[in-house]
């Protein structure tokens, strides 16, 4: 009994010790300033012990709420910023699925725990509606020329930052979907990469029918019931068939004939895709793709790098990339859906607005963006100049850089209105139901339309 207690105490003490060894928070740098000391009236000893120049924000600190996948780049930005300005940036990390709720809860409770917030852009309207983000329109206008905001990729510039004519942040991490293909597999079957969804289906069906027994599939489709994933896959087709979530007046058109065609295409393709699309999220698709068992995959632009990493992949160098296929019909379109993407804004309750804005300014500087975009597992370009920057082109391969550049000519974004959080849940639910055959494409989209109208008060 007593022996046991002693042992337990030892275990506890050890864990305390271990815990205290763990990265003590870096103290803000203490910088000596000039001091004059007078001794005995006559003798004046004057000494200057300035090792570093005083920095503008010495001793100040801000909190930066970021998502887990951005940990590396956000921490890098933080340390560069501290080096330059002396301000300490505490990077507070949450799983990406929880970032909006954390930010909104913080403001709702009046905590003001965060100064700078990394947000998923489709939630911009929701964040603004809930008073999370500071209106930085004036700052934006003032710095527009000096910081070269016109260099931001036009597709991101407004989409990630603007609601009702006001600015709430800067583009932080851009990303859109392109179609990757496995050169080896396509060559084996004598296919060229598809330009239309019909070709895509044909390729997918042919390869799967021949290769499924060996575990090789023509395509992989992410159909897991997570808005980011499932709606992304839908949007890839919706745009291609010429559909959109809303018309110019903001009226929902989610059950337009194009949309139905798009969803039907998704459902048909799913039959031949890597099993089993409703369970396929990032990891499942990557599992098929990186092991050379999937011929075509819609994914974000960072997949190329991942595929070239032999630790992660069995098919380095065997990939190619093209823009998203087009649909058929009168309104068929070429699109590159912006299926993820993050902005960086300042909290309405920021304790230190000045430094927060300075951090925004810092993070949007062209040189810093290039630096951040060339980190492994970091961010994707938000500036046109980055795509032309040799360092970046070298980092991701010139081919991919050009493909991204090309894709931006017809990029389409997600809605960012205040109701989107609710709307996307409805859509997500119905898409998933259609995918497993509980509803037809038409029913699912009609139901979505009806519920959207209710939510938007447009009945």
């Amino acid at each position, binding site marked *: 009994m007593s022996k046991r207690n002693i042992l337990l105490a030892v275990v506890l003490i050890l864990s305390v010790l271990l815990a205290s060894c763990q990265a003590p928070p870096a103290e803000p740098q203490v910088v000596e300033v000039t001091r004059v000391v007078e001794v005995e009236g006559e003798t004046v000893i004057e000494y200057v012990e300035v090792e570093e120049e005083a920095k503008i924000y010495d001793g100040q600190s801000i909190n930066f709420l970021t998502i887990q996948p951005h940990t590396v780049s956000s921490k890098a930005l933080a340390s560069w910023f501290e080096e330059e300005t002396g301000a300490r940036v505490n990077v507070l990390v949450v799983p990406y699925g929880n970032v909006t709720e954390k930010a909104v809860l913080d403001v709702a409770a009046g905590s003001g725990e965060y100064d700078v917030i990394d947000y998923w852009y489709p939630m911009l309207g929701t964040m603004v509606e809930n008073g999370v983000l500071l209106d930085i329109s004036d700052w934006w206008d003032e710095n527009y020329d000096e910081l070269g905001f016109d260099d931001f990729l036009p597709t991101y510039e407004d989409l990630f930052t603007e609601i009702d004519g006001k600015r709430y942040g800067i583009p932080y991490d851009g990303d859109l979907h392109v179609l990757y293909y496995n050169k080896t597999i396509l060559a084996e079957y004598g296919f060229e990469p598809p330009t239309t969804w019909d070709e895509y289906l044909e390729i997918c069906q042919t390869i799967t029918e021949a290769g499924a027994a060996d575990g090789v599939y023509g395509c992989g489709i992410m159909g897991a019931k997570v808005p980011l994933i499932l709606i992304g896959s839908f949007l890839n087709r919706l745009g291609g068939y010429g559909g959109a979530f809303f018309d110019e007046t903001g009226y929902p058109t989610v059950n337009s004939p194009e949309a139905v065609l798009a969803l039907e295409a998704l459902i048909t393709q799913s039959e031949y895709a890597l099993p089993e699309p409703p369970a396929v999220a*990032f990891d499942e698709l990557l599992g098929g793709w990186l092991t050379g068992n999937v011929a075509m995959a819609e994914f974000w632009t960072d997949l190329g790098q991942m595929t070239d990493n032999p630790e992660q992949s069995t098919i380095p160098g065997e990939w190619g990339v093209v823009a998203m296929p087009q649909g058929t019909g009168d309104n068929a379109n070429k699109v590159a859906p912006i299926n993820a993407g993050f902005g960086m804004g300042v909290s309405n309750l920021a304790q230190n607005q000045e430094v927060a804005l300075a951090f925004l300014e810092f993070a949007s500087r062209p040189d810093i963006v290039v630096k951040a975009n060339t980190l492994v597992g970091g961010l994707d370009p938000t500036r046109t100049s980055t795509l032309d920057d040799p360092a970046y082109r070298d980092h991701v391969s010139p081919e991919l850089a050009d493909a991204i550049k090309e894709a931006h000519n017809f990029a389409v974004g997600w809605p960012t209105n205040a109701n989107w959080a609710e709307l996307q849940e409805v859509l997500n639910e119905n898409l998933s139901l259609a995918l497993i055959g509980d509803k037809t494409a038409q029913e699912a989209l009609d139901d979505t339309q009806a519920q959207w109208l209710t939510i938007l008060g447009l009945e």
Partner: protein
Amino acid sequence: MSEQTLPNPMPQGNVVSRIMYSRYTRLILILVFAASVLLPIVFMATTSIKQPIEIRESGAILPTRGIFTENWGRAFANVPLVRYLFNSTVVAVTSTLLALLIAVPATYSIVRFRTGGMVLPSLILGTYVMPPIVVSIPIFMMTRIAGLTDTLFGLILLHGMANLPVAVWLIDSYIRSLPVELEQAAWVDGYGRFETLLKVVIPLIRPGIVSAGMICMILSWNEFLFALILTYSDVSHTFPIGISRYEGEHGLQFGEMAAAALTGIIPIYLIVLFFQRYLVEGLTQGGVRG
């Protein structure tokens, strides 16, 4: 007659009984049980030493591309795991003590003196039934007002309070099973109600307290929702939050996550082994008595 007085009479006639009570059946059961408990854990262990590509490539249990230990290093490099484990341990242990400290006298009072009549016990049960998500918003607000967000203390208080109904529920039957005369004897022997609780009741329901404590600890150790909502930084993040932090930009770092998860299980498991006698005694001697 002589046959019948054997200590373990042969099962008579019934096939079911013969199967149920055969030693071989038991052995098979043990093997099946051990295998099914261990399989995911072993799979987790081998995953932690597989190359990322191998995890995506094959579902074989053993690594086929050689042992890849870097997951372990990376698991610790990328997330302050030890800190989180420390936080979790502090929160689980302290909140459990808190829950027991409040629950034991309360349960005693409710069982023996019928304090609160029918209302209090049902209120406690109701609190326990309530899905935590229901109350998360007001709880967050209150924590904020109390200035306890992002502190271990806040989390300790919350876990302690949230597990209180569990503790009451589990301790209840143990107190009920105590003969009331023991307490009356203590009163007459010159002890007050508090002293009686301390000197007579608590030592006698120790098994119940241990098992209730252990269940509270498990619940606190695994709790995710409040730990996520109420904490911001490494100062107060707990282990389950840490586990959720092996999320790459697109996809999980399974190998590192597995290494992290095992790191969390190992110390706890050692402690459990260490207190095995205590815990097993606690869980098996007193037991749940209707």
